């Protein structure tokens, strides 16, 4: 299956090539980055389309005596699609953001490497491959987190990597347990643990969830995420709102549906506990967000909250819940990246990072703040935006699963989201037009264009969710 290999390799090859282009040839490098990102996107679209059409693509081999399988199923294909497509946007945004900054080479090298790692996570066909790429992702993104090289960045990087590795360790134990129970780690076919019945499996579930929950930032394990906000904005946007954190959420979806399987999950009592932990995360995350003054931190805590939406969908064990989770994955990523992009534009061109100092900023950046406002509505889950659909199906799933309090939790979270961001948007437009002598306007178009395009796509998919529905349907049909 050449598409699969091309999709995976484009990032690695790209990063190797970028690493040798000298620091001064910025234009050439940007072109190369764009090319490889586009290649990755193109091939992962091809893979995804093939997968949705029901073809199976599989590469299997052996690494270190372990079976190593790459075979995207619809869920993986969806994740790959989201990641690679947004990578393209983030790449364009990065050109604008990084223009005239130091260490562009290392930035773009790891930027592309992380693309490969993320696609690897998405396309992995067994636990071993998943684990491998999961670790690789940690290491590929670490240099991006500490890109500023400040003491704060180093501290954040340390926290990031230790949290991630601890999580990976828990996953490793869980994989070993799974393997020693079943001798099988493959995702294809029946769920790996199907047919096992034991209350001890609860602890296995805990291990898996702690492991992936670190990256998915479930509440006690979330503390690396706000710290990692010292990274450059495109990185925060892409990795800490989408790729890295989604790899955790994706892992949990995998664990629930491919490792345990919904039938087994239904018998495990711990899933209720986890559901409540997740509900707590949904509310607490966004409540903490309202108390943050630094914009990126606010967004980060909101990410914590919204990631748990996806997990909630997974834990409903209902087709609707899963559909909601997938839908939320797709739609939330677009809007969250938009929010980060907007925050980045503002902080780059006005130097303002605090919410309290952003009064009147919208007069200076009307398009940016408009995009921000629209994305905010999406975060609340209002209709013309596609996030409504995610939320709708999530609520539907929780009600169908008999967990209707979680539907209330989702609603409540929407309200708090409004409290959190509506004032920002409204305050941004109050007052007179601010001084518009923001000296360097370089790359504002490059930064604004992806932002606006994403907003338009989000609006469009909100009005016509059928556009992404085949993907959702493929995932749901795969598991139910």
């Amino acid at each position, binding site marked *: 299956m050449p598409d699969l290999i091309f999709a995976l390799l484009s990032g690695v090859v790209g990063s190797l090539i970028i690493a040798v282009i000298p620091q001064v040839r910025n234009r050439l490098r940007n072109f190369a980055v764009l090319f490889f990102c586009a290649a990755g996107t193109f091939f992962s679209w091809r893979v995804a389309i093939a997968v949705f059409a029901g073809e199976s693509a599989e590469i299997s081999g052996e690494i270190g005596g372990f079976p190593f399988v790459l075979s995207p199923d619809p869920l993986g294909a969806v994740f790959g699609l989201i990641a690679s497509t947004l990578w393209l946007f983030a790449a364009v945004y990065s050109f604008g953001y990084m223009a005239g900054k130091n260490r562009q080479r290392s930035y773009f090298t790891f930027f592309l490497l992380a693309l490969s790692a993320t696609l690897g996570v998405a396309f992995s066909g067994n636990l071993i491959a998943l684990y491998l790429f999961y670790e690789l992702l940690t290491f590929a993104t670490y240099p991006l987190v500490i890109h500023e090289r400040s003491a704060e960045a180093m501290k954040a990087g340390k926290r990031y990597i230790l949290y991630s590795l601890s999580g990976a360790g*828990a996953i490793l134990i869980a994989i070993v347990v799974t393997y*020693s129970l079943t001798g099988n780690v493959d995702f294809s076919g029946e769920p790996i643990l199907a047919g096992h019945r034991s209350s001890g499996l609860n602890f296995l579930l805990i291990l898996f969830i702690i492991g992936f929950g670190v990256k998915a930032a479930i509440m006690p394990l979330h503390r690396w995420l706000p710290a990692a906000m010292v990274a450059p904005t495109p990185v925060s946007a892409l990795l800490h709102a989408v790729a890295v954190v989604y790899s955790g959420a994706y892992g949990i979806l995998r664990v629930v549906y491919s490792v345990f399987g919904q039938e087994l999950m239904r018998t495990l009592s711990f899933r209720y506990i986890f559901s409540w932990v997740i509900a707590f995360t949904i509310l607490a995350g966004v409540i903490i967000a309202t108390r943050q003054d630094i914009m990126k931190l606010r967004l980060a805590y909101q990410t914590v909250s919204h990631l748990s939406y996806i997990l909630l969908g997974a834990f409903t064990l209902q087709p609707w819940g899963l559909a909601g989770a997938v839908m939320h994955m797709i739609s939330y990523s677009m809007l969250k990246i938009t929010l980060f992009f907007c925050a980045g534009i503002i902080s780059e061109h006005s130097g303002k990072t605090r919410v309290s100092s952003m009064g009147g900023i919208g007069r200076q950046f009307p398009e940016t703040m408009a995009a921000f406002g629209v994305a905010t509505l999406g975060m609340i889950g209002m209709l013309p935006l596609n996030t409504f659909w995610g939320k709708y199906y999530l609520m539907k799933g929780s009600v169908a699963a008999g967990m209707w309090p979680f539907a209330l939790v989702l609603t409540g979270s929407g309200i708090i989201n409004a409290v959190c961001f509506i004032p920002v948007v409204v305050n941004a437009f109050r007052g007179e037009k601010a001084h518009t002598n923001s000296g360097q306007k370089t790359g504002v178009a490059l930064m604004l264009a992806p932002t606006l395009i994403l907003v338009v796509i989000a609006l469009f998919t909100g009005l016509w969710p059928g556009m992404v529905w085949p993907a959702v349907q493929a995932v749901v049909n795969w598991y139910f």
Partner: protein
Amino acid sequence: MMTVITDNLPVFVVIAPLFVAFILPTFARRLRLVEGLVIIANTLWIAGAAYLASIVLSQNGIPITYALGGWQAPWGIELKAGSLGALFILIIAGVSLMVSFFARNNLTEEVGSYERVARFYVLILLLGGALAGMAVTNDLFNVYVLVEIATLSCCGMVSARKHARAAEAAFTYLILATLGSILVMGGIGFIYIITGHLNMAFASQELGRVWQNSPHVVWMAFSFFLVGFGVKAAVFPLHVWLPDAHSTAPAPASAILSGLAVKGYLICLLKILYNVFGQTLMQQYAVQRILVIVGTLTIMAGSILALTQDELKRRLAFSTVAQVGYIFFGFSLINTKGLSGALFYLVSHAVIKSTLFLAAGAMISATGEGKISGLAGIGRKMPITVAAFTVASLGLIGIPLFSGFIGKWYLLLGSMEAGSVIPAVVIIAGSVLCAAYLLPVIRVAYFEPTPEVDVKDPGLSQKVALIVLAAAVVILGILPGPFMELANMAATELLVLK
């Protein structure tokens, strides 16, 4: 002809380095020659080891036995080159070859005059021979003698550098190791008193019959062996000599000490535990419980202590302590997976730790700074060294694609099979701590501002050594095939014997 070589292979792999060690001082004035000789000897040795391993592999793990001097087993000394021996000798020979490559043109500044360098090589070869002997010998008292040879040559290496700390560390090491040897000898004495045999196989048979007549002596033997080898293999809390000794030695010596010497004692302990006492007795006395406790304690304590060190080599030395804990822990798992995991981990740690020490030595000698903070930004100036260090670090942490992962995987599987989850958690915690103490080095080397001073990669042969070792880490991680097979056979053999 073939049979002559084949039959004498077990003794060849032991004698070859020892022999070269004896003739080496005669050429002491001519350093080039000494170095050439050492490399040739090592190459021959590794060829022999590889041949031995291939034979063992093709025989499906059936060992080649060799009676020294023609005296047959109960009376004479027997060498038994099984899969365990073949595996270990192969790794000893390989690592020493690379270390001697690294040491080329490099030792004088650390050790001193040419003669001292020659003596240093003598010690390396002696140690190699002794370790190889430990791996293949089937005689208990022979174990004691070889342990002593190894201890003395290690002490020599530790004291090779000319400052006070080296002498101090060497003295501490010598006293403690001798205490350990005394205990080992005492243990051997107890075995002999009970069974009247020094040959492991016979002693083991006899022990199986008579242990119930004098269970307390068996206890004494167990505890003497455990403490004796525990001191030498540096398990917590008996590791106290190791950090000083391993960090003050010259880089090649540290590599060999951490990578190989400690492993030799572990192999001895393994053989005594499984071949002499056997798993029945181990279970009877619940020795594995001690091993688990000591192993997990060692992992945690070693890792945490490593975390607090500022000096790179001390940090690596403490990391060795932690990794010994893994192997010790693996010995406690009386099942094939756990044991083969421990053995593979032993192999991979030998390669990884020697890479780390060699790279650290290169970095330290280039910058003249022993502290981690002094390595800022050298990743760009010494790309190959730091890259090798990085690869080895990732291997030690246990990232897939690198050799450490496979060892850890089987250890985890083994502990699952043994039904214990907490040690598994400790293993993972150890990995995370390992990341915590190794990654800052890499971070400092790559992501801190580059200094003005002019540092460069070491010379060609050093680079070759580093590249080969780092490649070995990756290759062992991706294609562990024959090594894993040997480890598997060894584990099976250890378990089947009794």
